[in-house]
């Protein structure tokens, strides 16, 4: 029984973070039609910025906010500096090939990832460093028992749900949110409605950048910080997004928790070495049975 509870708590805590990563991926996918493989590189980079601030004696919360801002700016830069010129290029045979059109942005985001990792290494050296948590990381005590669940875990889960609420409200109740949804669904009609879809797309990237930063800040207390630590988080986040449906924010959260539980239960009941295989099997399962994910909408293929 205790095994189950441990697995459940661990799965919930980690699942919340995977949900954040997944949400960031969904935001860029919906807003720009790209899966941003550089996302965790951005998170790592902004967490380093926060870490530097903290090392220079700034309060955690100031560093937190600045990291989020940096995330937004970094996201906007990636779109403005890379993705926009990329989509503006029309006269290359390579880009006219159908499969290349979906592949090139992937390669581009991998390039960004490589650059961010190298830059982090150059600026801050590659040694691992710790990262603090704003809330206690000791198990919560109920009576005489200490749960395998900390105040920090609760904090993380809280943040994820707040983020989900805020983003959903943004998308469904604000004009800008409507513009974002519209430009993802039908760019031509949206442009004809006088909306600058380029600016809207950059905003998607910026918002996604904030989500990534958040994920980075929340996971590094337990993984420590170095240019490579967040790589695995990307594929877990990706799997979570695929499970939930790349087009759905709610799906992203559900997927995040789902994969969180899968990982934690495999960890506890089987062995840590089987985790990747478990993720792989889960991923393949989803892709074959229901490629659009649990909450996703089936894409209509235009001939």
């Amino acid at each position, binding site marked *: 029984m205790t095994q189950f509870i441990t697995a459940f708590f661990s799965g919930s805590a980690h699942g919340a973070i995977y949900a954040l990563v997944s949400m960031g991926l969904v935001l860029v996918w919906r807003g720009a039609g790209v899966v941003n493989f550089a996302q965790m590189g951005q998170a790592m980079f902004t967490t380093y910025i926060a870490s530097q601030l903290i090392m220079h004696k700034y309060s955690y919360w100031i560093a937190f906010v600045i990291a989020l801002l940096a995330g937004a700016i970094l996201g906007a830069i990636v779109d403005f500096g890379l993705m926009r010129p990329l989509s503006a290029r029309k006269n290359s045979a390579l880009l006219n090939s159908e499969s290349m059109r979906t592949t090139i942005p992937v390669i581009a985001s991998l390039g960004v990832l490589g650059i961010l990792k190298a830059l982090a290494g150059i600026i801050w050296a590659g040694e691992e460093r710790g990262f603090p948590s704003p809330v206690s990381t000791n198990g919560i005590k109920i009576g005489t028992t200490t749960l395998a669940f900390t105040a920090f875990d609760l904090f993380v889960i809280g943040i994820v749900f707040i983020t989900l609420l805020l983003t959903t409200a943004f998308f469904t109740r604000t*004009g800008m949110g409507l*513009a974002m949804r519209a430009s993802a*669904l039908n760019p031509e*009609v949206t442009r*004809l*409605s*006088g909306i600058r879809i380029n600016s809207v797309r950059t905003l998607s990237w910026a918002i996604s950048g904030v989500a990534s930063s958040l994920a980075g800040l929340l996971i590094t207390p337990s993984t420590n910080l170095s240019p490579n630590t967040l790589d695995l988080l990307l594929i877990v986040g990706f799997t979570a997004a695929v499970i939930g449906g790349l087009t759905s924010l709610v799906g992203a959260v559900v997927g995040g928790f789902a994969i969180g539980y899968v990982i934690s239960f495999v960890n506890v009941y089987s062995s840590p070495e089987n985790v990747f295989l478990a993720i792989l099997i889960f991923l393949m399962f989803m892709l074959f049975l229901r490629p659009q994910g649990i909450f996703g909408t089936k894409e209509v293929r235009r001939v």
Partner: protein
Amino acid sequence: MLEIKDLVTEFASVRALSGVSFTAATGKITTVIGANGAGKSTLLRTISGLERCTQGAIIWEGLDVTKLSVEGIVRTGIAQVPEGHAVISQLSVEENIELGALFRKRKASADVAKSVKEVYELFPILRERNSQMAGALSGGERQMLAISRALVSRPKLLLLDEPSLGLAPLIAEQIINAINELCRSTGLTVLLVEQNANTALSVADHGVLLALGKVVAQMPASEMIADDSLRAAYLGY
């Protein structure tokens, strides 16, 4: 007033428009007719900015809009209802209409509310189906929605690309008549592209006949509708 001067638009090496020139008078309905592939849609898409012309000028109210972005052109008061009742199926009727007025919401929110009210009065069925997904609407309703989306931007020039396409003749006529009414009552300039020449010419003031990317005839609509030789030569009946 809209002046088109020697407009040339090319795709790969095909000239869809080979030097098109005509004028659409303010407050009047000008219709562009012609067989399939004549370049009618390309003409509208070049005006709205979705396609770029390689030569020529589009003068709208004294301003050459050929270099503006699509979004910029909308803000000069030109609104296009593209072919195929283009609405966003996964958004509701209400959201589709709201989308059309978003860009001016900050500067003219009162007028936005007014324009939304007006389109609901023009097409009451939309109010009934307000919260339904646009994809659930019938063809005619979707066309009404597409037109409404364009109208809430308070355009001074309305570009309609084959509004009757795929619609039952009765509904198509209803819609064309609604446009006609709108034009007469508000002084809206309308550029109407249509395959159905008869219906179009019956409401239009001026007719432009396009064939293979060139203007082959332009005259008052009443004359064009009566000209049998033109009809036989270019429209096939």
